[in-house]
């Protein structure tokens, strides 16, 4: 469940609805009622209003904190440093992006073995996004030329052919800037 929420675009979409729907329901109900049903003043005691304000604000801050604290293990900075600590056997791959292709030191990987992607751009701003065979984005990196490498560790879980796409606009053939990685099941 948490993996779905924090590691996929549709998970983000679910959280989006979770925030939007209660707001729009309550807000539009109040607008409708106080405009078209009974637009007179409500004599709600100011003490009660203050209590609603406190509950609302602490609720919002509480949920914001919860959503973000639970997301921390999914930060690439955190998962990368954990993987680096736990695993000695990390496969290093150097990626250089240029208009409009990738140079990669390796394109074949094994399920379960962590891969450290070290990526940079040699001309303009490019992206390096890996798509799971099911179409989900595993991660994307932004590569600004002249900046030290972007780097993170990812461990493939499923065998298959993974698509690589550039997600930063880089000129007239931007949409043709892609590549493929092959992930095979581990030998043991």
């Amino acid at each position, binding site marked *: 469940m948490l993996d779905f929420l*924090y*590691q*996929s*675009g549709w*998970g*983000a*979409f679910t959280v*989006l609805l979770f925030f939007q729907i209660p707001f*729009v329901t*309550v*807000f*539009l109900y*109040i607008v409708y009622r*106080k*405009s078209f049903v*009974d*637009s*007179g*003043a*409500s004599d709600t005691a100011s003490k009660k*209003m203050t209590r*609603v*304000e406190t509950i*609302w*604000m602490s609720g*919002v*801050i509480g949920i*914001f904190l919860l*959503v*973000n604290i639970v*997301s921390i293990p999914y930060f*690439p*900075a955190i998962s990368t440093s954990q993987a680096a600590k736990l695993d000695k056997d990390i496969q290093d791959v150097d990626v250089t992006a240029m*208009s409009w292709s990738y140079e990669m030191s390796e394109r074949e990987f094994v399920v379960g073995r962590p891969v450290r992607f070290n990526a940079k751009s040699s*001309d*303009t*701003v490019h992206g390096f*996004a890996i798509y799971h065979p099911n*179409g989900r*984005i595993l*991660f*994307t*990196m*932004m*590569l*600004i030329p*002249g*900046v030290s490498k*972007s*780097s993170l560790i990812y461990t493939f879980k499923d065998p298959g052919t993974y698509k690589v796409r*550039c*997600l930063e*606009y*880089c*000129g*007239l*053939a*931007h*949409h*043709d800037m892609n590549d493929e990685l092959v992930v095979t099941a581990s030998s043991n």
Partner: protein
Amino acid sequence: MLSATTVIRNTPLFGRMFNVDTDTGLEEINAWPGLMIMISFVWLLIAGLLGVAMPVTQIFELDSSLFYGAITAHGAALAFPFTFQLMVGVSLHRAASCLGTPVTGPLPALIFWFMNIGALLLALAVLLGLNISYAVMFPLPIVGVETGQWSMGTVILGFTGIALVLVTVILLYPLQIIKMLFFDNRRDDLLLSPRSLKDPGMLGMAIAAFVLLITGLPIIIVASAVLLGLYGILPMNLITWATEPVVFQFTFFIFAHNLMEAMAIMVISAVYATLPLYLADGTRKLYSDRLANLALWILLVTSLTSFFHHFFTMFPALPAALSYHGNIMSWGTGVGAALTIFTITATIWKHGLRPDPGLMTVIMGFVLYIFDGVSAIITSNVAWSFQLHGTMWQSGHTMAVLIAMAMIWIGVFMHHYPVITGRTLNKKPGYWFVGLFTTGALGVSYSFLAAGAAGMPRRFAAWNQEGWMVYGNLILFFGLILGAGMAALAYDLYKSRLISEPAGGKSAVPAE
């Protein structure tokens, strides 16, 4: 008669919708704002056609450079000569009528001409092939010349246009607001509804002016250096610091990010200022000015440094600590927004509303604004950013925030319409506009966000894979509904009647 009034009168079709009333002695606060608002809608028409062009090039698999040309011009037109110019027009009228200062002299004229000539030059450069997308991904313009995608001439032309627009946004407009707030003499004949900096409406305007001025200065310096280099006035080896991609990217996003935040502060302050005028019990007072001002200050403090969220996916080139800071500050803007939601809802709950199309436009614009804010803070979480950055989610956010802000300004404009033009609007087409425009905006926005969730890249001329075309078709469909909404508004403006004319239905005109 002022020259701005003459230009409006002589503009075919649009002139009738925005004609300034010259009988009330208020021409000095109406003419330039009226002209700016009118021209902003001309740009919206252009942006709308370009918006439709994008899915069309994809459905019929036309040449991809058409798509990239359309997206560059569409984004640039929507952000600057439409939304920003609309905001300038409405806010200058609003400021003038609240402070009793005229909008005349060289500054408003410069704002108008710089913005529109700049936008025209950029549009011309795009037509000539400068397809750099609406966010300048430096050094793409230069790399594009080296790889033969467009010529150096188009880069110089386009950058000249961008420079004129930036000078308007970062220097001229904030200086005009500051001049009116602190230096111009108050004239009682122009003062319609006195306000001071203690009012949330005025406070937000002042904050926004200073944010634009201060956070825009770095990009003005860097862009001027680059431009002087391109003109050959400065030798290229003197400006290498400015053409460093990371320098340009950071100064660009510090500005572009805070531009949006300044516009947000400005637009929320406009909601705070307009809502009380429609309270049913005649109170004309927010639930709490203190809470409203607090929300603006929270928004200011948290938004200033939350721009790091544009760079999370550079890790570790952007140190993790700065990412976390950006993440926390971005969600902090959500706390400010929650406070705003409470103040607005409590005000409506406590005092009731007199429904009116202008007010409902503001309210539905506010709903869109909050909806968009949710999508914004979600991508500003570090974990989600790695799934969503560079996808249609981001385009959806950019577009939705512009639509939401524009909708609120349109609502505020509808409120001021009788004072500016001496005519009143009709309720029925007004409500049609609110309904269609809200439906279209929500539909477009959800289509973009769902496309992003499905991994569809933004600024990407190959929709015909992985089943992404569905989202493209939905965007086109809801985009046309947005267009129908604008048509209803145009009809409403066109069919407005003189205040003195006997009305079919009774429509009360609230004071400013």
